[in-house]
């Protein structure tokens, strides 16, 4: 008799056996290719979203090998104020996984750890990477294993990464929380449509997730002992394509109240937004997108003055905005049903002086004048 864990691993064993031998750092230096062994190395400690690890906007020096480590955590996570629990699968303990930032031509070297305490095999597919199913074929790790994958960041932009361990496991791992994003900056930084440099004072990373939590016969959300226990019901619900929750950063209200994002009038904020599975349409209520890379790819000129931008499922985009007025801004998925009823709402708290020129209440509400 096989255990549930063995059954889940079974689906991916074939991939492991067929895996290619690990890379060595002795690959020959070809024309235009640096000697990898000679490259400087930099270790980066990732931070949980919406925050982003410190990084240079304009790279100093040549390409480097940037070392990251992510530990996969399977754990129950509360996803709304009612205490609804998701048997979550996470990159580094957060939903979404952390935003990684490198520069073009840097080498991303990720060590992916799957602790013995987990029950499932996992891997990582980087949309920024070339070959081997985005690295998925070379990064499958069973509980108790770790793997190190390196890829060259050849293209600039914001890109999704997600778990893709094969077959039905792929969408299930993704809707269980296993996605994040990487931003590959041009070495000389962001530029507007005329090639003029753009900078940001703050950066926030928002990962949007669609969750599918099964209900019992009374209509209450069910909770399960383990991811495996949730599998059958969740798959059935997922196939209906209607999420029960559509949230930013792992839960309803993750970026509101005490956790609202902060900014000041005059500050320029870069908002990176990813959705690994489903289309979304971010909108900053009361603000705009000054420069928006809707598809997230910095080789294309940014669109300007957008009201709402479209993030295709399976991609990450970036929007740059300089706040001009103080107050509370709601940043929503402008399918307003998803924003208000399903949870896709975040808030910015913006401090600063009010500009009457941009807006004023000329006359407060009063009874309708009668003559």
């Amino acid at each position, binding site marked *: 008799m096989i255990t549930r864990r063995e059954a889940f691993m079974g689906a991916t064993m074939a991939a492991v056996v067929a895996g290619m031998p690990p890379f060595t750092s002795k690959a020959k230096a070809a024309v235009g290719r640096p000697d990898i062994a000679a490259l400087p190395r930099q270790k980066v400690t990732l931070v949980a979203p919406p925050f982003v690890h410190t990084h240079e906007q304009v790279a100093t020096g040549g390409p480097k090998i940037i070392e990251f480590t992510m530990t996969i955590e399977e754990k129950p996570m509360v996803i709304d*104020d*009612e*205490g609804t629990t998701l048997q979550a699968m996470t990159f580094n303990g957060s939903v979404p996984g952390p935003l990684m930032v490198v520069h073009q031509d840097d080498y991303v070297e990720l060590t992916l750890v799957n602790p013995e305490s987990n029950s499932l095999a996992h891997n990582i597919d980087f949309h920024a990477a070339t070959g081997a199913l985005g690295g998925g074929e070379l990064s499958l790790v069973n509980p108790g294993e770790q793997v190190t994958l390196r890829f060259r960041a050849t293209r600039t932009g914001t890109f999704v990464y997600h778990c893709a361990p094969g077959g039905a496991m792929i969408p299930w791992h993704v809707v269980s929380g296993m996605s994040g994003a990487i931003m590959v900056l041009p070495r000389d930084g962001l530029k507007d449509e005329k090639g003029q440099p753009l900078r940001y004072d703050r950066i926030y990373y928002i990962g949007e997730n669609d969750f599918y939590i099964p209900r019992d016969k*009374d*209509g*209450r959300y069910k909770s399960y002992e383990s991811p495996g226990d949730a599998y059958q019901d969740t798959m059935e619900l997922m196939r209906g394509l209607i999420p029960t929750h559509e949230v930013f950063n792992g839960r309803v209200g993750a970026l*509101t*109240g*005490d956790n*609202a994002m902060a900014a000041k009038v005059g500050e320029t904020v870069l908002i990176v937004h990813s959705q690994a599975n489903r289309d979304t349409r971010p909108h900053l*209520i009361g603000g705009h997108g000054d420069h928006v890379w809707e598809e997230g790819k910095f080789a294309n000129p940014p669109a300007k003055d957008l009201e709402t931008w479209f993030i295709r499922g399976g991609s990450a985009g970036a929007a740059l905005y300089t706040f001009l*007025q*103080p*107050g*509370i801004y*709601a940043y929503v998925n402008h399918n307003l049903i998803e924003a*208000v*009823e399903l949870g896709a*709402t975040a*808030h910015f*708290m*913006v*401090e*600063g*002086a*009010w500009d*009457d020129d941009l807006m004023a*209440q000329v*006359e*407060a*509400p*009063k*009874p309708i004048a009668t003559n």
Partner: protein
Amino acid sequence: MEGGTARLPDSRAVLVSKEVNIMPFDIPHMISGLVAAAAIPASMLGAADWLLDGPAEIPFPVAQTVAVSGRVAFPLPGEFLRDGRPVAAPRRLEEIAAFEIMTYQVSVLDYRRCVDAGACRPADAAPGQALRTPATGVSHVDAEAYAAWYSQATGERWRLPSAAEWALAAGERFSGDDLPVVADADNPAERWLSAYRAESARERTPVAEPQPRGAFGANAHGVYDLAGNVWEWTSTCYVRSTLAVGGREIATAVENCGVHVLEGRHRAYMSNFIRDGKSGGCAVGVPPDNLGFRLVREPRGETFVARLRDAVRGLFR
């Protein structure tokens, strides 16, 4: 928690004494008495529920009430402007005529009786709730329908409390509006930001799911579950008032009775048809966990006169 159970009076005795009150010439009372009698068999259908729910429930109990009267100082509900700028709600001291308020919120079982009688729409609360849990997932419209049915069924006059009556009954549990109104004439965002911070800092209820009656204990008056996790509808309409320049008197006011005041851990305003606080709120701010209600009973004398008046009016309709 069943803390309130032991304190329930013998409701049967209340029922009997009510019958004694039916006077021979009180025609409206007799009619409603018949309605009440007719309601009993229907509610007997809930006998199995009663057996499951414990011995404190009888087939048709008249709600236990607490008598309240006195003066209450409270911030007026609504929104207030002076010189075109939002200002804190003025506090008023009001003398409230004596009234009786339900010791507990109307329960799932209570409300079900109204539904069974065909006078109330089924609530939106999660199924499978204990019968002694407050009825939630009910709108202002539902609460009004229940009050009308309950008045007819009991032959008494029951209605929602006004916000002032609620404040008086709530006593030390009353909070009213507590969001700061920062007066920075040049920057309206200061007020939004400070209110947002205050809302974020508000202590959340430990559990969002409605709890069995009595779970949040009694206040000094002996009224249970005030300011727990069920916000209560009142009969007070939302109103926007302009205060006289330099004064506290209301110069103009526009009432919107499509929106009513709810009281609880903090004050809330909801459209009459909203049954779920979470979807009825604004874009920002902490919404009520659940919407429910309790009723007040008007003094009997008034009831008799009012009913006679209504009956006479009815003749000329």
